């Protein structure tokens, strides 16, 4: 994603901000959310989720909580299917293979299961 943003000359910072989402009774932060990318010119955070279904669910839950606490925050969640769409669009089959073959990430042939967290997960994309 960093390479794509660089290519299109979109300024980004990696995890520059952390948003507390859960505190204990003493007021100490016990859970927080640090979106992967901050695009200052677009006032947008990107959070990448090329992970297993269990972790996608956890991330979805975190994001819901963040938006409850910080409703003005603009966060775009990038699911595995979004990566696939970008790779398809740009004809990057080799990179797609890299992304999907790593342990703990999307396993080829199991994409439908892995990406089901997002809407229209079983659709093809441009």
């Amino acid at each position: 994603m960093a390479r794509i943003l660089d290519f299109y000359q979109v300024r980004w910072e990696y995890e520059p901000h952390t948003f507390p989402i859960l505190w204990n009774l003493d007021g100490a932060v016990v859970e927080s959310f640090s979106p992967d990318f901050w695009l200052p010119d677009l006032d947008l955070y990107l959070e990448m989720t090329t992970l297993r279904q269990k972790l996608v669910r956890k991330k979805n839950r975190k994001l819901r909580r963040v938006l409850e606490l910080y409703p003005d925050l603009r966060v775009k969640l990038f699911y595995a299917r979004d990566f696939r769409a970008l790779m398809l669009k740009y004809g990057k089959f080799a990179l797609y293979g890299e992304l999907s073959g790593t342990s703990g990430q999307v396993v080829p042939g199991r994409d439908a299961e892995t990406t089901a967290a997002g809407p229209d997960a079983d659709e093809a994309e441009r």
Partner: protein
Amino acid sequence: MVRPIDLAADIGEILVTEEALQARIRELGSQVSADYAGRPLTLVSVLKGALPFMADLMRRITVPVRIDLMEVSSYGGTSTESSGLVRILKDLSATIEGEDVLIVEDIIDTGLTLNYLLRYLRGKNPRSLRICTLLDKPARRLVDISVDYVGFTIPDQFVVGYGLDYGEYYRNLSFVGVLRPEVYTDAG
């Protein structure tokens, strides 16, 4: 083994028929003509996908029109690997300073290319700069861009035809269709 291309069999579903395309383009042409009444207009099309749309749209516009063509490198394009930055492969042929300009696009999804193009064209000081796209896929949007004229808002599916390609093919289809997933999964 390379999968042979079969224009008819590779399409799983026709999303926008030829008739629907032409009807909507007539409407867009009327709308653009009304909005720019009495003013000449420069249409800037982005190669290659927007060519059929540009060709049909310009013939439905009744105000005086100039056309120009641009080509912008795409991430992953072999000719751009060395620089690692988006580049203008074909620039405008004439100045647009002080002109009313309408960008004619085939599809907007992430908005990254258009965002770059807008910044580039604004730097050339046109009188006005608007956007007309045949297809809009808002589910994929990363960059919020205000689009002035939209032909069809489409779902998050991989579409080809009427200028849109997969591996440079399928552009010559007269409709917009959804490519069967096995076409690109087999290609990997």
